[in-house]
């Protein structure tokens, strides 16, 4: 067996009850959950993460997709990306969600990967994934080579002098535009966290990416099905036509009254250290007609205060153009 994948040995257990799964991870500092495995296994092969114990959550009763007329959509944490993307009620009531999922990864990965795992996937920053280089996210205090190195893929918003890595999930961007809530359960807490408060800015602790504690399990997400959500689109700009992460992506939802914007959401991927809601740009659109002038002015708000680096300055322009394009399709 000399050609194994290079993962260090670990113990494995398949949990059949939520309480067992949570205890199985919470009780071991080196333990983690596995769902699809499509990110975790890569990280373990590259020693970007090392775990002595892995708790499989696929047998938990958390794969349901429940959308009752008038109520919120409730999507279980181990529901597969494919099943959510193909769900007829998701497609009709939350189009931005279906579009973001279908534009993610490949059919094979979407058959495997789960909603909870997707939200918790780690950055694709090459320094983070290469255990041979410094990285404050992987090894706090070791430094961030991306600040002055290869930073074409990195953030222009939300960064700190410790980390400018982008959160790569398309799903999270769509869910942010949909005002979704993450429902989680830990050893001694159960809670609901609005997605807008779920991800943390890197600040001085880029190793801490979200509010979850060790051993806390995402149970599912809840998504309001509103008129706003029903008029939503996802635009993903990437280096090749398909099967690639976003250079810039935007999830937009617009509710019009007559020709005026009643309400709007704009969330971005690729440009920020966490899925990024553009509040100022939304404010510039509310109550207005979506004329080209209004769109261009709102788009400028998206990147106000951006900190471009040597290789990613193009993102400030690209994000504005993507904003205008997606809103034109919704007016």
């Amino acid at each position, binding site marked *: *067996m000399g*050609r*194994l*994948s290079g*993962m*260090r*040995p*670990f*113990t*494995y*257990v*398949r*949990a*059949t*009850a*939520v*309480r*067992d*799964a949570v*205890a*199985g991870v919470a009780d071991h500092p080196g333990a983690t959950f*596995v769902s*699809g*495995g*499509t990110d975790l*296994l*890569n990280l373990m*092969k590259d020693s970007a993460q090392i775990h002595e114990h*892995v708790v*499989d959550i*696929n047998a*938990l*009763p*958390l794969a349901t997709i*429940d959308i009752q007329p008038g109520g919120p959509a*409730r999507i279980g944490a181990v529901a597969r990306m*494919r099943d959510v993307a193909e769900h007829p009620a998701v497609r009709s009531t939350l189009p931005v969600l279906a579009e973001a999922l279908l534009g993610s*990864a*490949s*059919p*094979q*990965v979407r*058959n*495997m990967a789960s909603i909870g795992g997707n939200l918790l996937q780690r950055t694709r920053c090459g320094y983070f994934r290469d255990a041979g280089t410094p990285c404050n996210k992987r090894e706090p205090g070791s430094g961030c080579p991306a600040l002055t190195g290869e930073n074409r893929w990195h953030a222009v918003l939300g960064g700190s002098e410790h980390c400018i890595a982008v959160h790569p999930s398309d799903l999270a961007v769509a869910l942010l535009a949909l005002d979704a809530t993450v*429902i989680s*359960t830990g050893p001694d*807490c*159960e*809670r*609901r*966290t*609005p997605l807008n*408060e779920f991800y*943390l800015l890197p600040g001085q602790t880029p190793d801490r990416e979200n*509010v979850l504690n060790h051993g806390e399990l995402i*149970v*599912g997400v*809840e998504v309001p099905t509103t008129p706003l959500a029903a008029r939503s689109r996802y635009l993903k700009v990437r280096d090749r036509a*398909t*099967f690639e992460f976003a250079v810039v992506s935007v999830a937009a939802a617009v509710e019009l009254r007559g020709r005026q914007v009643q309400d709007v959401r704009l969330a971005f991927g690729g440009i920020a250290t966490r899925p990024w809601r553009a509040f100022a740009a939304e404010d510039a659109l509310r109550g207005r007609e979506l004329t080209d002038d209004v769109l261009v002015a709102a788009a400028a708000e998206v990147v106000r205060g951006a900190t471009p680096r040597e290789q990613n300055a193009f993102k400030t322009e690209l994000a504005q153009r993507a904003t205008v394009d997606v809103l034109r399709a919704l007016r």
Partner: protein
Amino acid sequence: MPVEISRRTVLITAGAVTAVAAVPVTWTVIEGAAPPPAGSSTAEVTLTVNGTVHRRTVEARVTLLDALREQLGLTGTKKGCDRGECGACTVIVDGNRIKSCLTLAVMRDGSEVTTVEGLADGDDLHPMQEAFIEHDAFQCGFCTSGQLMSAVALVEEGHAGSAEEIREWMSGNLCRCGCYPGIVAAVGEASR
């Protein structure tokens, strides 16, 4: 015993407080009474591969790809990138095409697996294999078993409506020899 997921306000990092609304519980979780089972670094795994039942003791860290190739000797499934990026390792598990390098064999205990070795019926090739030969859909052949498994699943999924649709739904399978036009033509023909 069905346990309601309770709700309360919880302190989160940096002093921020998440207010927790009182809404109906979504997931009713049936909890077992026994203590959580301890883990093991090896496990007995049963896989039905191309109709044959195999029972093996595998290390937990062994991927399905390595189990197929190294333990069952089924080397038709290829290891290209071992990172989910190339599709050479594509197999069909319980009806779904997946990348076997991104899943553990222990996670697939009890599953039905179809590999490229399971496509032909004796000397009678699968129509997709015939179509690949017909349309010159390979050169070196390294990606081909993954392309075939993806293609068979794609037709089953109903994604062979047009050349454009085939290209999109074959996008998880790369071909370094650049045989894409032949692959698209072969999949289109075999789907008719």
